């Protein structure tokens, strides 16, 4: 029994030290773990687009939405945002794409990049002979050569004018089509159309073989870069509209972190003092297990893999603070019970009885809280509940906090108290 207890206490100590190392930021087994911060803390943009898949139904619509998500993700990655997150959500027939871009400084540029359909078309310009005397009008007839036939696009500077333009390379099929089209239109113009706007309509001097062309409109460097990304990622299969944007600057986020940490520490000190004042030496044990709770929780924030990975948000910090309160509750329940039981039996057996009885209340109460946390976190991505954002962040930290508090409240406090009892008897 004695040996057993010692082993347990040593195991708890080892766990705490390991978690402490991870929390402090030292690499463990050669791997360094970082805390992933939500947009409200790190700064960045949360964008919600609504897809207009009006004409599509069933499988076709699903396919279009999937490819929409993929194209947007490609664009975001090509834009150079690290740790971005693109997800779809459907609620009562409305299809949404949620895009999270951490650390972005100009969200306007990003929304323009993501939200534009970027449907590239090549069209023939056909002159129509008007009635005698009137000026001939021209008609633009789209060909079957589109952005889908592209192999790659890149920003270049025009050799003659020095202006930025976009050089494109067709794939095999596209090259063939382009050869045919240019061959048909020698001496005439071929229009390059982007989202129903004619970007340029250069005239063709000769049949172009090899599948290379250049789009030179009146671009700025930024516009050329944007078009390059859009063409490389492909056109959006359906058009989208921005319905929500939340951008938090990095300074505001850093300020929030600093304030929450300060508030959390002061709250924690108050709680610890309160426990010592109310429960004396037991309070000290509760405080030790509370500190262990903090260290383990923080370490898990860093190392949990998806789908349980924690992205710390402002509500998430609040969820953590609330779970501190609930972690202390386990100890309070046990100590209050101990006060009663100690009247009837010796300390050691009163301790075991208290833990046993208090466990029922702790379990029943925490299951109810976990059920709510489960609904709020919505880990199965049920579309009729919130699928992202602050609510999920809050629920995840609350649920994790409850789980760990069960461990520290029951296992850690209990074994520390047992150790304590042994000493008491020896004296």
């Amino acid at each position, binding site marked *: 029994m004695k040996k057993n207890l010692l082993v347990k206490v040593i195991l708890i100590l080892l766990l705490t030290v390991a978690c402490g190392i991870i929390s402090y930021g030292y690499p463990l087994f050669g791997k360094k773990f970082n805390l992933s911060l939500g947009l409200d803390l790190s700064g960045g943009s949360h964008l*919600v687009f*609504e897809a207009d898949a009006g004409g599509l139904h069933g499988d076709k619509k699903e396919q279009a939405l999937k490819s929409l998500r993929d194209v947007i993700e490609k664009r975001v990655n090509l834009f150079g945002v690290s740790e971005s997150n693109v997800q779809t959500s459907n*609620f*009562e027939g*409305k299809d949404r794409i949620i895009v999270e871009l951490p650390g972005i400084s100009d969200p*306007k540029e990003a929304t323009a990049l993501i939200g534009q359909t970027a449907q590239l078309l090549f069209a023939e310009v056909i002159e129509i002979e008007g009635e005698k005397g009137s000026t001939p009008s021209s008609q633009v007839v789209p060909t079957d050569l589109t952005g889908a036939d592209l192999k790659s696009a890149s920003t270049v500077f025009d050799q003659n004018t020095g202006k930025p333009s976009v050089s494109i390379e067709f794939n095999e099929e596209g090259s063939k089509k382009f050869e045919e089209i240019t061959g048909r239109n020698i001496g005439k113009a071929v229009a390059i159309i982007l989202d129903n706007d004619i970007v340029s309509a250069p005239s063709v001097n000769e049949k172009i073989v090899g599948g290379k062309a250049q789009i030179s409109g009146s671009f700025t460097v930024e516009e050329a870069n944007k078009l390059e990304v859009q063409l490389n990622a492909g056109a959006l299969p359906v058009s989208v509209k*921005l*319905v*929500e*944007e*939340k*951008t938090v*600057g990095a*300074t*505001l986020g850093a300020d*929030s972190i600093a*304030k*929450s940490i300060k*508030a*959390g520490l*002061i*709250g924690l000190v*108050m*709680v610890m003092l*309160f*426990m010592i004042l*109310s429960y004396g030496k037991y309070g000290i044990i509760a405080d030790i297990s509370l500190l262990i709770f903090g260290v383990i929780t923080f370490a898990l924030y860093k190392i949990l893999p998806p789908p349980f990975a924690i992205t710390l948000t*402002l*509500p998430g910090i*609040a969820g953590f*603070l*609330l779970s*501190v*309160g*609930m972690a*202390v509750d386990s100890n*309070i*329940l046990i100590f*209050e019970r101990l006060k*009663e039981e100690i009247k009837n039996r010796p300390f050691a057996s009163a301790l075991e009885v208290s833990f046993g*009885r208090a466990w029922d*209340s702790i379990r*029943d*109460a*925490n*299951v*109810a*809280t976990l*059920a*709510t*946390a489960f*609904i*709020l976190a919505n880990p199965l991505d049920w579309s*009729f509940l*919130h699928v992202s*954002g*602050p*609510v999920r962040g*809050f629920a995840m930290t*609350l649920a994790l906090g409850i789980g760990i508090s069960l461990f520290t409240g029951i296992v850690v406090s209990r074994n520390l108290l047992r150790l304590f009892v042994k000493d008491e008897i020896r004296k």
Partner: protein
Amino acid sequence: MRLESNQNMILWMKYKFIYFAVSAVFLIVGIFSLLKWGLNLGIDFTGGVVTEYQLINGEIKLEKYGVKSEEEISKIRENIKILGAKELRFEVVGPSIGPELIKKTYYALGISALLILFWVAIQFKSIKFGISAILAMIHDSLILVGGFSLLGHFFNVEIDFLFVTAVLTILSFSVHDTIVVYDRIREKMKKYDPALGSDITGIANSALTETMVRSINNSFTIIFMLLSLVLMGGDTIRWFAVALLIGTISGTYSSPFVAVPILVTWEELEKRFRK
């Protein structure tokens, strides 16, 4: 020993109508405010634009607009740039987001309440326990929502997405607290105590006496954490913390003074009818 501890027992249930009256006062004020002034909904619900920016002299400005077109939004952004100010926060919410948020919240509320009702009913093998726990939970959320209706009217506090989270959390906290008290009642019901008999009033009195210190101490620890968030946690989560604070206090009160009295009254009425 047992008899001795029962002598220290406080006859909590003797005053149950006072507790009902206290709750009624708060509920009536809250519901009155809700009906008269409603809730001061933020852009998460109504749609619109909020910007927060810092001028060169360090002054921070907050501006709010209703639903705007894309051009108007660009213009607002341009104006901030012209001032040379640093954009701290920029939020645009389309008009279609709010109704969706409200519906999803109702679903979340409904499912959580059902899950909790089932859990409590199964654990305590009585639908009476489940329903009185849910009633106490509704009591707490009404006080919270009513309280924010008053805060909205007098201090212009807005209801946002975070408030929804606070309400849902308070639901679980309320039940969490109630279950601890119920648990003691269940334990006493199982073990027949000749001093208490099988009288629900006596059992409830004894259970409340034994759990009162725990309930108060536990709320104190949560209140300490929340209070420091309210005072020092920054503007972004101040009202969120206030919401949790109101809910925690109400949730602590409602376990012994709403859920248990309802349970006791119900049992007494049932007994009278059986006779």
